[in-house]
């Protein structure tokens, strides 16, 4: 029998946050607090070379003198950095064969819908799974290796490809970039590294799955994607965390480098635990994501943000090369007491550079959802073009939707368009659906899906379905 809307309704009724379980796994967690010794300890646990440790220590020195930024339109109890543990790893790692992986962990992966066996081979997604702070398993490494593609955990990359890591790490997001980037640079535990050689088109979607399991830990991972000349890669990222009463910190860095003619497509479905109905608990998601485009290169960010108690995230493109293209497609949903301050930065440096920004915000409950974006056309960026559209949808009279665009033009040939609208779902639209026998809840789902379609269309197929469902779940019960 086909899956009907009634089934969906039933499913929704029982859905709160289905990833809120914890996995009972023995883990190796270092004591709380942060100081230089902790940084050294993390580095030594990962058996890192001296240059890596130096990099961390330098970042830590910078971080110590920085203050937390407060300009974002969010309000939350401050993170107590001395009460967090900065490293937690599932114990008993040993040789990383699928068979050896802790059965508990396998079960977790199954629950999350990521299985690394043949099933997934059919869908053609290579996955790197980061559990708490450590990358657990990367699939399809051999197959990718044949093409010269390197896809592994960040710590493996530090061991096996130090020349690449050294050359590119921190070039896009320097340690001094901002408070959370500096913190991440000092204490990052793991993450993913990906290198696509010249002229290679990566045959499958590469994917990272992040999971925070342990209580009182922060997760700090780094992703570095380097696409060499004329290559192509599509990269996915997903995140979940258990439901806990306290707030947990997630401060990641993503760096993308698209060399001449390369294209990187980076998609995120962010579904960290958003806290309960009263705004208790949830993840603080403070992420720095940035990519650089050389000549004729293209970077496309797509994100579906439904989770996290507080989000602070601006995936950006530096359009350095001539004819390069930057894109940003985003759906950000906030419900209950969630707060999101998200957007993008498009920095046009090269000639004939183009950027497109489509941002769709949905706020419900008591939440606040802000778009904050920068479009900067510099003096030498002749014939630069930008189109920005940010729409906000309000559901309920206790929530807020805000738009803070910064538009800076320094070149007379620049063409910049920006438009934004804020409104609620029209009663006439709902009425139209009602009179055709669609009840209000379904009508709203229908309208919201249509509203987000422009962005969801940009997601890889498997993710698009998941994202659509996520939207429904996130907005469940938000309409009267």
């Amino acid at each position, binding site marked *: 029998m086909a899956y009907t809307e009634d089934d969906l309704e039933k499913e929704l009724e029982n859905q709160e946050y289905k990833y809120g379980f914890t996995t009972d796994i023995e883990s190796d967690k270092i004591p709380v607090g942060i100081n230089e010794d902790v940084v050294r300890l993390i580095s030594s646990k990962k058996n890192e070379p001296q240059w890596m440790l130096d990099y961390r220590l330098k970042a830590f020195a910078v971080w110590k003198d920085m203050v937390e930024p407060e*300009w974002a*339109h969010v309000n939350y109890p401050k993170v107590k950095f001395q009460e967090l543990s900065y490293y937690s790893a599932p114990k008993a790692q040993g040789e990383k064969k699928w068979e050896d992986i802790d059965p508990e962990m396998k079960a977790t992966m199954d629950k999350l819908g990521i299985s690394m066996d043949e099933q997934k081979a059919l869908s053609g997604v290579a996955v790197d799974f980061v559990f708490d702070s450590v990358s657990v398993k990367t699939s399809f490494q051999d197959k990718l290796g044949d093409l010269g593609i390197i896809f592994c955990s960040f710590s493996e990359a530090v061991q096996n490809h130090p020349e690449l890591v050294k050359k590119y790490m921190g070039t896009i997001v320097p340690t001094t970039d901002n408070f959370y980037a500096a913190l991440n640079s000092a204490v990052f535990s793991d993450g993913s590294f990906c290198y696509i050689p010249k002229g290679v088109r990566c045959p499958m979607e590469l994917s990272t799955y992040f999971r925070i399991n342990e209580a009182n830990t922060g997760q700090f991972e780094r992703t570095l994607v380097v696409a060499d000349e004329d290559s192509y890669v599509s990269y996915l990222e997903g995140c979940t965390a258990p439901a806990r009463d306290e707030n947990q910190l997630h401060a990641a860095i993503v760096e993308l480098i698209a060399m001449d003619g390369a294209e990187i497509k980076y998609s995120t479905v962010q579904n960290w635990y958003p806290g309960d109905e009263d705004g208790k608990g949830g993840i603080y998601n403070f992420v720095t994501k940035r990519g650089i485009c050389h000549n004729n290169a293209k970077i496309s960010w797509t994100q579906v943000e439904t989770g996290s108690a507080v989000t602070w995230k601006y995936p950006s493109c530096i359009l350095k090369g001539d004819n390069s293209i930057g894109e940003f497609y985003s759906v950000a949903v906030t419900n209950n007491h969630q707060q999101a301050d998200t957007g993008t930065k498009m920095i046009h440096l090269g000639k004939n550079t183009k950027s497109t920004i489509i941002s769709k915000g949905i706020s419900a409950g008591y939440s606040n959802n802000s778009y904050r974006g920068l479009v900067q*056309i510099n*003096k030498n960026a002749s014939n630069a073009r930008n189109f920005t559209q940010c729409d*906000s949808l*309000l*559901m*309920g*009279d*206790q*929530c*807020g*939707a*805000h*738009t*803070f*665009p*910064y*538009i*800076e*033009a*320094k*070149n*007379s*040939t*620049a*063409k*910049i*368009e*920006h*438009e*934004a*609208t*804020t*409104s*609620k779902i029209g009663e006439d639209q709902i009425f139209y659906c009602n009179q055709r026998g669609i009840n209000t809840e379904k009508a709203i789902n229908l309208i919201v899906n249509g509203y987000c379609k422009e962005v969801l269309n940009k997601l890889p197929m498997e993710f698009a379905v998941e994202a659509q469902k996520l939207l429904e779940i996130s907005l469940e019960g938000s309409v009267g």
Partner: protein
Amino acid sequence: MIADLTKKDSLLASLSSLNFSDENEYFADLRNKAKAELETLEFPTSKTEYWKYTRVGKIVNKSYNIAKVEDIDITPYLIPGLNANILVLVNGFYKANLSKIDAQDGITVLPLSEAKNLAQLNAKFCSLTTNKEEVFLAVNNAYHTDGIYIEVANNTIATKAYHILNITTGNNVIALSRNVIIGGKSSQVKVIESFINENGNENFVNNVSEIFVGENANVEYNKIQDKSNDNYHISTEQVYQEANSNFTINTATFNGAIVRNNLNIWVDASNCETNLSGLYLGQNKDHIDNHTVVDHMKPNCNSNEVYKGVLDHESTGVFNGKVFVRQDAQITNAFQQNNNILLTDTANVNSKPELEIYADDVKCSHGSTTGQIDEEAIFYLQSRGISKRNAMKLMINAFAKDALANISITALADFIDTKIEERFTK
């Protein structure tokens, strides 16, 4: 010893010769409070979000004089064909001998210094300007010299417009003028304020106007900034709207080394309409910054904002518009538009249209564009025998004029049109 003074102190030192001893206790107390507030404030730096694109170093790192002037010829500054009451301020002081007022029943027009003897001013004066954490506002609160007081009684319609000529003359002069405009219930009034500079370099005008729009009232305020290229102007309008009222402000800025317009409108009642429009034409090294805030606090209101800029040479334009829609302000329609044309690669424009919305049953939108004159339109005109130069002129004129369509005083609209045309004929 001067080296030990902070920037704020040296600016304030310029003002120390001002004597306000003849004011009554109530206003002396307000000045003292403002001075105390000033102690806690600093001049904005590049890190001050609200002043992100405007550096005030050039203004505050100088010392200024207070200069009372006897007589000047105001005829060149009158608007041709305009039948209006003329009110003249020179360097921040009222000139009765140059002003020409036709008395009308129900309308009180006085220099502010005299209006301070009226009991009804107490409740209003400074009510929109105290503790706003804006340093230039606080300076004006503490040290304003004189200004214009216009009060239109309930059910009164002003038959003639009021034209305030706010003139500076001499070098390094600071002028701290202060206006209060009160529109009573169901009243109507139109005000024009021209900011003009006669000779003289590096003058600094720090002007504040408090405007109260009563129930059912209709107030139009037009502001023309036409000073020479090396003058500084920081101007603040604080506007308060009551139920069913209509407020329109038009700002035309033709030049100025640093011009900053702060416009804050509190719409604190239902069924109000607010129109804000502006035109800024930058040339040489002008820096023109328009900051507007419309705060919708109650339901069923409309606001409409259009700002347009044409920036030539090495000029910089800044637009920062903010619309707040508070939780109570359901059924608000707010619209915000900013269009810019850059004529050279050395010109700059920074646009920041912002929406902050806490109510759901609203229709709010904003648009911002930066670009050039459409090549195809130019080609079309050329193909009909119009030279490229003239075609450009025609297009820019059309673009610019559109921004001030809300001006209801014909003579003023014509005057501004002529000024725009003159600018692009050069």
